[in-house]
């Protein structure tokens, strides 16, 4: 997909003026936060489970090479195949090879963000293969020619009336008089249309929430059941997953599952947690004939062992974006690539380069709400700061900002000079403000005064006033 992270600022201006988007974003603030809190409060062991989930992932990452070895051996023992993919292009070519061999015409898809990361849909279409998204949200945005704006709620930026309009436009073979006002009818119409697609599909593609080394199993966690129908009824099941989805054992999976759904949707457990191991067995009467896993690196091995390693613990629950004031204001598309919100602000520069995604780790107030709710306790603000450090080191920041900061840092390190400068500047600024006590505009402060008044200083600095207050000279 086209990367627009470079124009983040322009994207946000557009998003802030988009009335429909702003209407839709209100649901994010209202829905997810309370549900997560309620679910966390209902389980006394929630924080202990978070701690253990962190331990599990840290242990796994330290031994990732060995767990991948064990995982691959188990997949092969169950009759499946693992394909290592260096990058997006490589993953697409591996997929196309499988598709060509199977003479695939149609591919059904459960929800997978890796598919977005590698741009699979556009690539399939270029190669004459029809991708059919089956997750309701994904289906809606595929009709609209859009990309997900959220990692677990892909169509969260769209309102019901917009969905209704889309269905009328695209489902032209159906009765134009039909009632599509209620969400229930929209759902059953999508269900009816997708029903026939599952069985027709030559390949069913899913993502994976976990890959279990102990058993060679892929796990998907869903609510709709579309992922299950996709992987069950497609004649060939292809799992798209990245390296860090590996967990050691079934028990480790059970631990992380307990924090996943609660953090994501506030459910005790998602409706369907499905463990798939290899293709259809001889005695089976249903199931896919082939089972493939495309294991994608695409920059992740380069994060391991660095200050960004903690990001590889991410289980894609979406809690960080659900609690992010910036995400609430501008939505997921503003971030300009696949992964939005705080996790995207850390991951995107790792995957596409900080030169393209530099805005993302900067566009955070560091309010810390993301880290506070992250089930895997990923220090997201800290890692965004690391990206800012990388940018600073490679002189990627805007010149004016860098110069301003440089002057300030120079003074801050020289107390006497600093004191002299501010003792002159603040009373002058107070005079300039006049009696009102604030500025409506001020040269060089346009970023502030565009939308806000700037409170004027009281006059003398604290240090000046203190020296004259009879408390005696500051020490």
């Amino acid at each position, binding site marked *: 997909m086209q990367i627009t992270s470079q124009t983040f600022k322009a994207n*946000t201006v557009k998003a*802030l003026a988009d009335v429909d988007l702003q209407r839709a974003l209100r649901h994010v603030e209202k829905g997810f936060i309370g549900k997560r809190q309620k679910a966390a409060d209902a389980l006394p062991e929630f924080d202990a489970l978070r701690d253990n989930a962190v331990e599990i992932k840290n242990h796994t990452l330290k031994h990732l090479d060995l767990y991948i070895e064990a995982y691959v051996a188990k997949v092969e023992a169950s009759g499946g195949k693992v394909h290592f993919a260096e990058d997006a292009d490589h993953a697409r070519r591996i997929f196309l090879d499988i598709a060509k061999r199977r003479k695939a015409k149609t591919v059904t898809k459960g929800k997978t963000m890796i598919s977005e990361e590698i741009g699979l849909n556009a690539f399939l279409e270029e190669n004459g293969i029809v991708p059919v998204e089956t997750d309701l949200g994904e289906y809606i945005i595929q009709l609209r020619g859009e990309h997900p704006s959220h990692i677990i709620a892909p169509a969260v930026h769209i309102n019901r009336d917009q969905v209704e309009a889309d269905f009328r436009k695209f489902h032209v073979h159906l009765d134009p008089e039909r009632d599509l006002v209620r969400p229930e009818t929209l759902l059953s119409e999508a269900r009816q249309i997708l029903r026939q697609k599952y069985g027709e599909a030559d390949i069913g593609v899913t993502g994976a929430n976990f890959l279990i080394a102990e058993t060679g199993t892929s796990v998907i966690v869903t609510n709709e059941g579309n992922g299950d129908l996709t992987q069950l009824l497609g004649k060939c099941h292809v799992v798209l997953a990245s390296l860090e989805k590996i967990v050691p054992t079934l028990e480790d999976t059970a631990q992380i599952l307990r924090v996943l759904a609660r953090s994501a949707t506030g459910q005790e457990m998602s409706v369907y947690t499905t463990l798939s191991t290899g293709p259809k067995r001889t005695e089976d009467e249903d199931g896919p004939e082939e089972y493939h896993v495309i294991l994608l690196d695409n920059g992740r091995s380069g994060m391991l062992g660095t200050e960004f390693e903690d990001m590889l613990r991410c289980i894609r629950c979406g809690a960080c974006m659900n609690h992010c*004031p910036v995400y609430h*204001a*501008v939505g997921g598309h503003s971030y300009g690539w696949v992964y939005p919100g705080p996790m995207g602000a850390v991951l995107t520069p790792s995957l596409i380069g900080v030169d393209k995604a530099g805005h993302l780790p*900067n*566009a*955070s*107030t*560091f*309010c*810390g*709400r993301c880290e*506070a709710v992250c089930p895997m306790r990923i220090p997201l603000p800290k890692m965004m*700061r690391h*990206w*800012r*450090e*990388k940018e*600073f*080191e490679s002189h990627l*920041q805007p010149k004016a*900002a860098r110069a301003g*900061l440089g002057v300030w*840092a120079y003074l*801050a*390190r020289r*107390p006497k000079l*600093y*004191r002299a400068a*501010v003792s002159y500047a*603040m009373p002058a600024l107070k005079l300039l403000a006049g*009696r*009102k*006590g*604030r500025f*409506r505009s001020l040269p060089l*402060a*346009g*970023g*502030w005064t*565009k*939308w*806000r*008044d*700037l*409170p*004027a*200083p*009281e006059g003398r*600095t*604290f*240090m000046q*006033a*203190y020296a004259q*207050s009879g*408390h005696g*000279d*500051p*020490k």
Partner: protein
Amino acid sequence: MTLNGMIDGAPSTAPAQTTPTVALFVTCLVDLFRPSVGFAAIKLLEDAGCKVVVPASQTCCGQPAYNSGDREDTKAIARHVIETFEAYDYVVAPSGSCGSTLKKHYPELFANDPAWHERAVRFSQKVHELVSFLTDVRGVTEVDAALPATVTYHDSCSGLRELGIREQPRQLLRTVEGLTLTELPEADVCCGFGGTFCVKYPDVSNAIVGKKTKHIASTGADMLLAGDLGCLMNIDGKLKRENNGIEVRHVAEVLAGMTDKPPIGGKL
């Protein structure tokens, strides 16, 4: 005011029943824009039985450089702050944000420098945000102040999530004579200030602070309080631009009974 120096990791170098010396870390925003907060802090600390000193060579905690990715300048500033303040019993700042930089981030900053790391850790144990210092360390349970007004309180992010400050200011505000405290909806959500964020991404910042002022207006309060001047200047600037006359003050001004000065940004 009976509990001296033994709570919340306070160093045992400050023996009970004596007068601890508190070095006031004024913070650059208070120094430059709102000296009243500094004087209010001194009054509150002295009322709590502390001797207050104000080291003259202080400038800033270095957060602007730190959050802009300039680690080396931040370290230089941090070393200066530590050298200037480490000899006192306590270091207190009227800001959760600067307090957290000193307390939580300095040790992290020197993670790869064992000598300075140890020094930063020892220093960090002495650092406290003003209101939490009063309640958690000095055991203050009430203040001698009066304000006949309905106020609402915004929880600044660093204080809330990095230092765990939530109940402390509310607890003391309830003891201000004549004051009614009304809860702010979504008080724990960021105001959109974020240091340099608000000037780098003014449109996004505006959208966030616009929600905050809407919630503030919904409380019907006469006054909005918080513990960080950055947030307060941001929120006040937006309220004024919206022609909303709600007064904005630092919580220390109210707790110290020092509300004679005009509010932040003046009166509407």
